[in-house]
């Protein structure tokens, strides 16, 4: 059996697509797991998107704890005789998969961007060394756990004619000694850099928070309207909310055009934007690392370059 789980419905639908393909090749069926309240509508949607069966581990837990969810998922896996487990690679999913691997004494690989069978063994690819290399990793024994980030695979088209069993069960579970005392929404500006076609990004080369308007103005004329930033501006100075942060621990983006102004080009930042179409760098230091990762660059003070560039593009685009 192939089992798919994420607490994020969107990712689950994407995993069901890859899971169907793997299940077919393995000659197995695919189960989608739901942890929480019995939600028949959601279960039917999973079936319409490729699940042969939906297993609902019913629980009244009101919040996610990896310790408890790993215990529930372990029960579902034993009950369904699952050997291949695909888990959505968001923050919850990664810590859940890793803990589950320890409990099941199973192999686990996180953040897989490709999965296939080679010599009948599940083989996966993941980005390592800050984007400098891709490791091809192969499971040597079962069960196998792989986590997959969002947007790696496209969901299957919905087919309402598909049918499948919906199983509901409550399991006894070991409670965690930890306790969630507060959940606070983080300050965000509702920016989705992952979906942007054009991004103008700013870094430590800016002297003051108010100067970011130079980037906003350029983004406006580019009709990109999306502004990104490197780590220091989001994490240390907090001039921008974390939804703008592009890099290894921030967001990974691939717009058609990426303009980096006043960004030195630390490997962690490059890892977040290296898949962009055209990369432009503006930096006053001709030795800045960012130029090595750019298609076009201007060596100059961003305070001079940005207004001129904004004007020139405005003229060009009419």
């Amino acid at each position, binding site marked *: 059996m192939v089992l798919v789980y994420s607490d994020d419905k969107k990712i689950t639908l994407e995993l069901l697509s890859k899971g169907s393909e793997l299940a077919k090749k393995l000659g197995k069926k695919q189960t989608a797991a739901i942890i929480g309240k019995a939600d028949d509508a959601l279960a039917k949607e999973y079936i319409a998107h490729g699940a042969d069966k939906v297993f609902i581990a019913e629980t009244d837990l009101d919040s996610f704890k*990896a310790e408890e969810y*790993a215990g529930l998922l372990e029960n579902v896996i034993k009950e369904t005789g699952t050997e291949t487990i695909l888990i959505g690679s968001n*923050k919850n999913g*990664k*810590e*859940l*998969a*890793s*803990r589950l*691997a*320890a409990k099941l004494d199973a*192999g*686990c690989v996180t*953040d897989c961007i490709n999965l296939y069978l080679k010599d009948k063994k599940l083989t996966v690819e993941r980005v*390592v060394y*800050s*984007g*400098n*290399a*891709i*490791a*091809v*990793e*192969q*499971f*040597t024994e079962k069960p196998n756990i792989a986590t997959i980030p969002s947007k790696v695979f496209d969901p299957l088209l919905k087919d309402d004619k598909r049918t499948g069993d919906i199983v509901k069960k409550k399991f006894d579970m070991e409670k*965690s*000694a*930890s*306790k*969630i*005392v*507060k959940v*606070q*929404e*983080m300050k*965000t500006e509702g920016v989705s850099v992952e979906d942007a076609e054009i991004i103008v990004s700013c870094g430590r080369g800016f002297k003051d928070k108010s100067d970011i308007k130079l980037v906003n103005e350029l983004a406006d004329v580019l009709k990109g309207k999306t502004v990104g930033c490197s780590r220091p501006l989001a994490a240390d100075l907090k001039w921008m909310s974390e939804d703008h942060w592009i890099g*290894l621990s921030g967001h990974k983006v691939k717009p058609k055009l990426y303009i980096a102004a006043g960004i030195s080009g*630390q490997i*962690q930042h490059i890892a977040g934007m*290296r898949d962009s*179409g*055209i*990369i*432009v760098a503006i930096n006053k230091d*001709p030795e800045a690392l960012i*130029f090595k990762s*750019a*298609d*076009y*660059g*201007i*060596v*100059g003070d961003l305070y*001079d*370059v940005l207004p*001129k*560039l904004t004007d*020139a593009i405005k003229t*060009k685009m009419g």
Partner: protein
Amino acid sequence: MNIIVCAKQVVDVSEMKLDPSTKKPILQGVPQKISDIDKNAMEEAIKIKDKQGGKITVVTIGPADAKERIKELLAMGADEGVLVPPPDKHDYHVVSSLLAGAIKKIGEYDIILCGEASIDLFSGQIGPQLAGLLNIPQITYAQSVSAEKDKVVAERNMGDKAVTTESTYPVIITVTKEINEPRLPSLMQILGAANKPINDWSADSLTDKITPKVETVELKGVSMERKNIVYQNDLDESVNKLVESLAKEGVLR
């Protein structure tokens, strides 16, 4: 309070190069360092010890030359080190099993601190796997930690939410890079570290789970081939040339 820090020696990724003919990354001869976020875990351990007293033990699964890296952490403020060389073939499962074995051998522990992930492979697996093996609570992605006598409270950065979690001891906490600024040891501390003990423990004395479940069959280089056209003379001319180039690329629409 008994504090354990798990720290990994990694290659300095910014110094990595690709072999021009095979396009594969060259790992030999690249400078080694302690994974950045593990240093944040070390710094947090020192802060906890300053407040609650106790002892900090650093555990590293790594080759013999990682001893030099452990000395850096001893200079920062750790009291004792443990070095366990892994078998040649190892994976996340083997490393977390070795850490669990070493920590059980140390015996007494209240807080285990790790970086959220190592900066070379960035799997994020080791902390949660270790927590699973020891069957204790895990608090991941902590951006602040407050250790009290009977419990610890941590604020976790979950991207769109900040989740505050508390736990009794023992507990594993994985920290983010934003939690603190790791200190630089003084010359006196560096000299003093030479007298602190580093224990060499063998892998097979700690666990029998030393067979990997995942094998790296290939490492493919990702070359960053870009045009690298840089304009740097007259500013107006540079800007015009850039705009012309972008128009030709079809990205100005």
